[in-house]
């Protein structure tokens, strides 16, 4: 009977779809309640799944229908999948909880409920990307994710948001096209779409040496397609405009969840379709590593040039995506552990940064230039503290998750080849210095003595929910930073089971 728990992912996916459909009929407040309870329920349910899978110490294949894997769709329920499902639900819950105020202020009247519908759809797409055992299902839900995140962006409805979401959509669709073509080639040479069969067929192909070039092409198309969609370095240009224009809550969801979902799907692809060894023979990882390293540096350089708070955080986001792909390209075991840890770190930190920044800026009358934010930390103490905590984590100060992440990257680098070691250490050093510069500048600004109080002191709306959400973000960050052992062990264990 305890294996009944394995049905929970299916129930959660269907529940999300039902809630999204029902949400179109509800008023805004009710839709918000539905979304919040949905995310909380997902968190609880997936926690149960996680406990069960951890106890069993193995992965389960869950048939979607009566037909097992070469024929029908399937889910794969494992430790890492459940961990990331939990993390994504948690971050969505906290972002929605803390991000009510900017939504109320900035969304076009009468359309607030659609934001929550889109949030439900993003959640279901992420859950499927995490759990799906089928590449084509992955493609379909990647498209749901793209369209829903585009909806989340354009909900603000002014000209520049619409422009930014058009740009985002075009970039993202380019990525989907490449991904789709890669999947098609893979289907052509193997005859399968489900990951277990694909892995077997790919192993046989590599052993026999047949279709080497098409296989290489399909792996690179899939990797590059997903990288374009998460906004890796040469394709990061949409980020600054998009996050700079959108409602901060949307930016939080997009940067914290959507781009990470694609990165996690790439990790799934590497492990469940090609297998790490074959992927590392293909040479694609070097391209990802180079793009990631360049992304870290260019993102940080972009951030240091910005005078606008949101755009600075956006560039920092581009740099963090670079970190994730750098880890994926670094090495199969430790590098991927670092990349997965960085996904968690960024998912937990960036929403906190966006939400705190939005409160600080709202208190200063909507100012976004740094010089106008002087002293905001005094008027909005909670947001100031949370922002500082998140910024410290991004810099990588001790006792935060960022420190552990940098430590893991360093550890992974020492096991890699010499050029990669040198490059990784160089990138880590440069990015830490640049990060320190721009985040320290911001933190010093908001705690600099104000020359005069802000012109209009806006009443603090909906403060308790924001305080709880921000406190949870900061607490988790620090707690994991101090007690990182269990989590990194878990990631390594999950990877070994993959």
């Amino acid at each position, binding site marked *: 009977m305890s294996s009944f728990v394995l049905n929970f992912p299916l129930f959660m996916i269907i529940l999300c779809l039902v809630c999204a459909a029902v949400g179109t009929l509800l008023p805004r407040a009710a839709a918000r309640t539905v979304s919040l309870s949905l995310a909380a329920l997902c968190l609880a349910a997936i926690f149960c799944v996680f406990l069960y899978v951890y106890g069993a110490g193995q992965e389960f294949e869950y048939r979607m229908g009566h037909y097992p894997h070469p024929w029908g769709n399937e889910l794969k329920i494992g430790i890492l999948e459940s961990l990331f499902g939990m993390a994504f639900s948690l971050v969505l819950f906290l972002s929605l909880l803390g991000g009510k105020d900017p939504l109320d202020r900035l969304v076009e009247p009468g359309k607030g409920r659609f934001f929550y519908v889109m949030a439900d759809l993003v959640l279901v797409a992420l859950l499927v990307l995490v759990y799906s055992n089928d590449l084509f299902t992955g493609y379909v839900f990647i498209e749901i994710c793209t369209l829903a995140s585009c909806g989340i962006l354009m909900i603000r409805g002014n000209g520049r948001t*619409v*422009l930014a979401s058009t740009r985002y959509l075009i970039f993202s669709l380019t990525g989907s*096209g490449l991904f789709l073509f890669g999947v098609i080639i893979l289907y052509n040479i193997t005859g399968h779409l489900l990951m277990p069969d694909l892995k077997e067929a790919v192993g046989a192909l590599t052993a026999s040496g047949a279709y080497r070039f098409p296989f290489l092409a399909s792996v690179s198309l899939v990797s590059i397609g997903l990288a374009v969609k998460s906004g890796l370095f040469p394709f990061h240009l949409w980020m600054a405009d998009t996050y700079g224009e959108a409602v901060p809550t949307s930016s939080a969801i997009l940067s914290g969840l959507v781009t990470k979902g694609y990165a996690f799907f790439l990790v799934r692809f590497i492990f469940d379709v090609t297998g790490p060894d074959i992927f590392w023979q293909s040479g694609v990882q070097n391209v990802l590593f180079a793009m990631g390293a360049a992304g870290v540096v260019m993102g940080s350089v972009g951030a240091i040039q910005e005078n606008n708070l949101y755009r600075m955080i956006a560039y920092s986001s581009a740099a963090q995506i670079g970190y994730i792909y750098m880890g994926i390209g670094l090495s199969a075991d430790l590098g991927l552990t670092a990349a997965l840890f960085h996904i968690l770190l960024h998912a937990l930190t960036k929403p906190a940064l966006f939400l705190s920044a939005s409160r600080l800026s709202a208190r200063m009358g909507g100012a976004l230039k740094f010089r106008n934010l002087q002293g905001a930390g005094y008027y909005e103490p909670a947001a100031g503290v949370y922002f500082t905590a998140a910024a410290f984590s991004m810099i990588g100060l001790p006792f935060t998750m960022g420190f552990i992440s940098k430590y893991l990257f360093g550890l992974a680098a020492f096991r890699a080849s010499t050029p990669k070691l040198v490059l990784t250490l160089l990138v880590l050093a440069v990015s830490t210095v640049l990060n320190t510069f721009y985040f320290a500048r911001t933190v010093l600004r908001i705690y600099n003595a104000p020359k005069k109080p802000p012109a209009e002191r806006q009443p603090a709306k909906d403060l308790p929910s924001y305080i709880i959400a921000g406190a949870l973000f900061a607490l988790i960050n620090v707690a994991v930073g101090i007690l990182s052992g269990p989590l990194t062990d878990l990631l390594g264990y999950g990877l070994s089971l993959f």
Partner: protein
Amino acid sequence: MLRILWDSRIQSAAVILFAVGFTTLLLNRNLMKKIVGLNIMDTAAYLFLTSIGYIEGRLPPILADGVADASAYVNPLPAGLVLTGIVVSVSVTAVLLALSLRLYKRYHTLDLDTIYRIVHEEAEERE
């Protein structure tokens, strides 16, 4: 090599169309053209997928008179996948069209470069 390309000419045509659509999607500044390019790119990918399932001299996968013999019909799976894909691309097209309509209402042009310039000038005026 050209011989092989000629033998699988449908797939070669699909690749050419994919490249044409991709170029238009990235290079053309007009939004409407970008949408057309996107559609051509998607259908080219689907054409490629469908051509995988084609087998010379077999029937469409609709079981005539209940004859269930795998050597009589073409591969049904690519058709099913493409069916899914077509609906995905029409949804994306609708969203992009709605976005371009909104942009036109606001900026009175479909040219993305011009829109960027207008936005930039507006931002500088505000400062």
